[in-house]
């Protein structure tokens, strides 16, 4: 295989001019534009409710994130006393068991 086969292929493929392929339409077919606008106007209410949903989802995500962050922060502060209490309770319980 030639070492620069890819470059060779690309160079040859460049010669295919866009005019040789089917040209796109410059104007919309009859009825197309009116259909698009009708569809847009009929979904206008959905856009609004969707946007509210997006806002409320974002708000919920932010609130949850703040809550989790707050819990983690408090847990860090409380971790030592909680560990101490649990260690003390465990010691008391163990000491009550008959040897």
């Amino acid at each position, binding site marked *: 295989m030639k070492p620069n086969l890819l470059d060779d292929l*690309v160079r040859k*493929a*460049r*010669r295919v001019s866009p005019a040789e392929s089917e040209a*796109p*339409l410059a104007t919309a*077919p009859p009825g*197309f*534009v009116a259909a*698009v606008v009708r569809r847009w106007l009929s979904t206008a209410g959905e856009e609004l409710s969707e946007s509210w949903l997006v806002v409320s989802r974002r708000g919920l995500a932010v609130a949850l994130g703040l809550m989790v962050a707050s819990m983690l922060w408090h847990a860090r502060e409380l971790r030592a006393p909680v560990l101490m209490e649990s260690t003390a309770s465990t010691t008391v319980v163990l000491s009550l068991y008959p040897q």
Partner: protein
Amino acid sequence: MDEAHQDWAGLLERTRQRNPTAAELLVEGLYPVVQAVVHRRKPRSADARDLTQEVLLRILQGLGGFRGDGASLPAWARRIAFRVCLNEWRRRQSRPETVWADLSEEQQALLLGTGDDTASPATEAMAARELLNLLLDRLQPEERWAIELADLEERSGEEIRAITGWSALNLRVRRFRARQKLKRALQQLRRTQRHET
């Protein structure tokens, strides 16, 4: 309607106020811009009319959030069209394997370097383009377009950035990955030829 003479700012304002006539004029004006992108970038099996309609609908729905002036509307529309086509590629991508037997004689000759000297440059170019399309089908859509825009269409970095929003680094990385995959695909094709012969 001629893009250069379109009163985009005025149409934009009236369309935002849900004026159907203005909306129709806006859609008519943007149609050629959108169609040109969809025609070039859509997956082969996708319907151009459906995709064009989807793009125009998204443009109308997104006008509320469009912060540019009227003159930048066609460029914004092109970018939306590009993204819709990209999503369509992602949705449809199956990355079919191509084997030696799938290739035409001209394509096989190109790979072997045994092309007929009497073949016209146009025939050779078409065979090269079709072969490249088969290989490009195996890439991620962004990698495919990096090759198409930079190597085949020879667009500048600025032009590519305006169409895709990619930074120069993004483009470089995608092009590099695409070229590596294309080279491996060519080697694999040659291996299937050895197995079949």
